[in-house]
């Protein structure tokens, strides 16, 4: 069989984190009763007119700057005309002729450990559509316009990726950049980040691109990887059988691991794009651009370097913590309170990661407050609780975000540091376990472990193990 190379380009839609919609003052909040976040503008009522939300421009520019794009300082909106009931005006306000960002790119790490730049052809701003709700009998469809007019940016890459791994690396990098900018939460499952995959194959060594297909309905990184594999194989099978790849849009069914043709190029619609006459050109002045640049937050690479420098935490830990904006935020906020970066890092790296895995949760779902983690660290620093109690309390913090001081108090978990009380318990344990005492005295030093355990049990775990050890050794002399 011939050797084939996969050529992939992505169109990524990202819902921006603005409070209000792109062309009206309605809320962008997810959920809410059907059509409760709507007005004449986002439901396409006659005579209504769009007014651009400036925050959308600022987010788009911020993403463009972070992905090394050239900003179009005089950009325009265009109308994309097509009929569909979720599209209330039967045209979408988008950008074709003068998109806001062009000619950028981001660096990714390849499987071989090398670096490679994936080009960004353009980023444009547009409005999202509403949602169709079908009844259970398949007879009627209703429209919910809550999502209609939610701002999107579409990031169109160059066909620079060659494998599913590169695609995932690109998407993860892009997602991290956008999350760091605060421009979007980029949740694939909730649809705030959506990727369409353009894929073609060609024989290794050829210059010319093969015929590409566009794959839609990819709701997770895993689905994207499977869809790429599936489509690559499908196209190879076609070519090997002497058939041709048809340029078309396909819908991936992740459950069946198969894609279905949605529409071919022949019946592709003519969108009759033309400049949106209801909006004036968007002029991004030098001053405005400068303001946005100055407001750009610290991105991951800078943060990573700073963590190593400022907090002296290991490269590996800094890498994990900065790999997610939410995690980095928790780290910094907790450290700001307790001033103990190493311990904060440990709690995040060990216990937090363990619990996330155990609960099959995403980092974004962490809901405990930095204040409570900081209080817990303070309790352990002051030896008010021992490490096993601390772990137990942390689980409570992780699950319910409880106040550890109050919890320790209410449940009587404070370490007993009263020397007298501890001494009498140990004396009792020694008296009750003559066999172990004898073993210890005859040289089986390990036997002390059993006695420590018995003491901890008698103290309901509230003793400081170091102190128990010390007193036991002393009494056994």
């Amino acid at each position, binding site marked *: 069989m011939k050797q084939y190379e996969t050529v992939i380009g992505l169109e990524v839609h990202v819902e921006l984190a603005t409070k209000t919609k792109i062309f009206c003052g309605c809320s962008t909040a997810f959920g809410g009763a059907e059509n409760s976040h709507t007005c*004449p503008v986002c*439901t*396409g*009522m*006659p*005579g*209504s*007119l*769009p*007014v*651009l939300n400036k925050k959308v421009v600022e987010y788009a520019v911020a993403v463009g700057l972070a992905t090394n794009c050239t900003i179009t300082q005089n950009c325009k909106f265009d*109308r994309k*005309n097509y*009929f569909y*009931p979720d599209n*209330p*005006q*039967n*045209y979408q306000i988008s950008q074709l002729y003068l998109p806001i960002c062009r000619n950028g790119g981001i660096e990714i790490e390849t499987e071989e450990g090398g670096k490679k730049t994936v080009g960004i052809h353009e980023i444009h701003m547009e409005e999202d559509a509403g949602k169709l709700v079908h009844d259970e009998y398949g007879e009627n469809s209703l*429209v919910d316009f809550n999502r209609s007019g939610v701002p999107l940016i579409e990031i169109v890459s160059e066909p620079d990726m060659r494998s599913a791994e590169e695609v995932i690396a690109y998407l993860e990098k892009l997602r991290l950049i956008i999350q760091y900018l605060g421009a979007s939460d980029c949740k694939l499952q909730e649809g705030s980040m959506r990727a369409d995959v353009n894929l073609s194959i060609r024989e290794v060594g050829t210059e010319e691109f093969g015929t590409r297909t566009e794959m839609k309905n990819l709701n997770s990184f895993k689905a994207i990887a499977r869809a790429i594999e599936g489509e690559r194989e499908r196209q190879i099978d076609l070519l090997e059988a002497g058939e041709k790849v048809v340029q078309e849009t396909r819908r991936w069914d992740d459950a069946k691991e198969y894609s279905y043709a949605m529409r071919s190029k022949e019946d592709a619609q*003519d969108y*009759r*794009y*033309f400049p949106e*006459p*209801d*909006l*004036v050109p968007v002029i991004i002045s030098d001053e405005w651009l400068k303001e946005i640049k100055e407001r750009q937050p610290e991105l991951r690479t800078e943060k990573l370097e700073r963590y190593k420098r400022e907090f002296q935490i290991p490269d590996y830990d800094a890498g994990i913590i900065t790999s997610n904006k939410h995690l980095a935020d928790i780290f910094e906020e907790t450290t700001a309170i307790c001033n103990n970066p190493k311990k904060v890092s440990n709690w995040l790296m060990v216990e937090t990661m363990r619990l996330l895995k155990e609960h099959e949760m995403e980092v974004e779902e962490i809901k405990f407050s930095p204040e409570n983690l900081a209080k817990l660290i303070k309790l352990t620093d002051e030896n008010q609780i021992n490490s096993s109690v601390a772990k137990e309390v942390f689980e409570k913090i992780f699950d319910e975000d409880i106040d550890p001081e109050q919890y320790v108090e209410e449940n009587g978990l404070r370490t007993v540091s009263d020397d007298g009380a501890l001494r009498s318990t140990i004396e009792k344990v020694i008296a009750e376990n003559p066999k172990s005492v004898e073993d210890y005295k005859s040289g089986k030093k390990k036997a002390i472990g059993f006695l420590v355990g018995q003491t901890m049990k008698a103290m309901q775990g509230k003793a400081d193990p170091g102190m128990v050890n010390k007193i036991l050794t002393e009494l056994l002399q």
Partner: protein
Amino acid sequence: MSLLNLTAVELGKKIKASEVSVTEAAMAAFEEIEKKEEKVNSFVTVEKEKALKRAEEVQKGIADGIYTGPLAGVPVAVKDNMCTEGTLTTCSSKILSNFVPTYSSEAVLNLLDAGAVIVGKTNMDEFAMGSTTETSYYGATKNPWNTEHVPGGSSGGSCAAVAAEECFYALGSDTGGSIRQPSSFCGVTGLKPTYGTVSRYGLIAYGSSLDQIGPVAKDVTDCATILEIIASYDKKDSTSVKREDYDFTSALTDDVKGLKIGIPRDYFGEGLDAEVKEKVLAAAKVLEDKGAAVEEFDLSLVEYAIPAYYVIACAEASSNLARFDGVKYGYRTEDYQGLHNMYKKSRSEGFGAEVKRRIMLGSFVLSSGYYDAYYLKALRTKALIKQAFDKAFEKYDVILGPAAPTTAPKLGESLDDPIQMYLGDIYTISANLAGLPGISVPCGLDKNGLPVGLQLIGNCFEEKKIIRAAYAYEQTREFTHSPLTE
């Protein structure tokens, strides 16, 4: 003499002086409407009950000092393409025959803030597409001067209602001459302001980059007064302009000394009716006699205005009218199989022939492969036309010409030959393409007793100059009422 013989400003004064109550004024309008509607058909919707209730509120508001403006309490009619909260707004189309908006257009809100009493919604060409008001789903409006003739269009209902004295003034909209041409045909005064002066929010769009709302009235004083009320900067309309000055009535001075008036030779060539030419040039002579400097010049590019206009307006319309699909509001066909069939049948049954023609024309010029050849070329032509006007305004304060090549044609003569109808827009559409203000003032009657309109075009934001010239001219002519008002 009927109360309706008064101008809007005259009535406003009487209301302020408590000589006439707001209710009396409204009742007088409804009496006229009831008497004349059968002959004229100016209105799609007349809202007597609502208006009389509003009249009482306004009367109280005047007493309480809430409404202090010159037109407080004066009855007005609004073209049916401007949204009015709680009142049917149809664009004279079957497809919106059941549409009641939940919001009012900004221009209407401005009227209400000034204490206006809206008596009803006026008839128009369907979606403002036409020059005769014959394409209305609600039947043609007739010209009050001779009901066998059209009133012009598309604001034919507004102009006929004012000419027939069914109301004191009206709002119209002008995309290619839709205020000025019917004003000319109906012997009333109509003004299209500079693009961006009156908010388009709530105006159901035809050609978004060309549409402007403006006043239709009995005289220039009313026009200037109404414009002061409806003009405003509106954040809800991105194309709205924050003007330096919203004063128009200070231009109502009978003084044109030193005003430089240019007459484009291009506007007086082939196709212009001899009587219209004579009346318009006579009006120019009047202004010259009053001290204006009048001079002929070549404007150029006039022959390209019509094709450029129809390409741009139809392109925008094809997209603007896409939302009327039977899904969310408006007419939906009775029987259908699936989504596409519903779209197709609702739109086929809901739109009239002229609207369909323009949607098809607009879709064609935007389609892939034709965009550059038609749409882009039309945009370039538009820019060149604007340049030609810029050049003219370096030399002249006002450009003078006819509003239409002829007086009002007979009913039924225009629709069979749409190209001929489109050519009738030749003197008005350039002002829309270049965003300029223009006014049409009656300047006499032809031998059949039909009015002729004088058009004065000004530079952007220079409404005052055309108001000044129009007002000075107006002082020399006898005010004539249409036969229907006698």
